[in-house]
């Protein structure tokens, strides 16, 4: 019943916040509208989705976000150096990262994070969903990178997406 009426609480929440942000006012009318949409939009979306992401513990999420923001800023600077410097110094290569995550939402999140953090772009997911192919702009020790990604991002993600 709950699944039918409210297929995805996270989505509902997002839509609710989204509407209020867009409407730029917090009046009874706009809240009513936001509630209406928060209920309707996921229902409509449910007609298109096979499964919605179900979240586990969110505590890790906050920490992860903070870490992510920091990494984004920090590593952007690295990339800037690498791009502006001589190209010959770059040691680009592909790296396959073995995955412990099985939840597709988790995998997606990990792929996104890898892309957003500089130096790596997630290029492909193997068909069995057990390997993620990354392209690294400049890497000396691929194994270290793999370990870093697995500990820094995959572990918290496994908590969020059980």
């Amino acid at each position: 019943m709950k699944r039918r009426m409210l297929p995805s609480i996270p989505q509902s929440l997002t839509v609710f916040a989204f509407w209020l942000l867009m409407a730029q006012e917090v009046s009874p009318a706009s809240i009513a509208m936001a509630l209406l949409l928060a209920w309707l939009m996921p229902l409509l979306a449910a007609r298109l989705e096979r499964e919605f992401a179900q979240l586990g513990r969110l505590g890790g999420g906050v920490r992860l976000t903070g870490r992510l923001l920091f990494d984004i800023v920090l590593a952007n600077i690295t990339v800037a150096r690498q791009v502006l410097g001589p190209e010959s110094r770059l040691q680009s290569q592909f790296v396959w990262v073995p995955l412990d995550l099985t939840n597709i939402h988790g995998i997606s999140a990990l792929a996104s994070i890898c892309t957003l953090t500089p130096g790596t772009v997630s290029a492909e997911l193997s068909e069995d969903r057990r390997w993620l192919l990354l392209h690294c702009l400049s890497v000396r020790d691929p194994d270290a990178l793999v370990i870093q990604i697995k500990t820094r991002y995959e572990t918290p993600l496994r908590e969020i997406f059980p």
Partner: protein
Amino acid sequence: MSTVVELVVVALLVIGCFFTLLGGIAMVKLSDFFRRLHGPAKSSTLGVGCILIASIVYHWVNGSGVHPRELLITVFLFLTAPISAHLMSRAALSLMDDRPPHPDRTPDPDGATVDRDDPAPPEH
């Protein structure tokens, strides 16, 4: 408008524009598609993000009200940029002749190599 805020806005703008431009430079300068991909995939995203935040602050302080709506664009960008990059790499990979060998399918001791191009049946 206080100087501090002004400075913050200017700083955000400078950072934002710098990274945006960096994305462009990366694209022109680097020699290989996958290298070029790094620039826009994150630098530009970050750059635009900074500019958007600058805009929020600017409008807020400038008296024309809070416009947190720009945040939506930022969220949107950060959500979509990885997907775009991912898809573009898949596209580039599909055009590549020497794709990185799949770790599971590397030549095993028996010598039976399986090429990825083989029309292997989907796993599920």
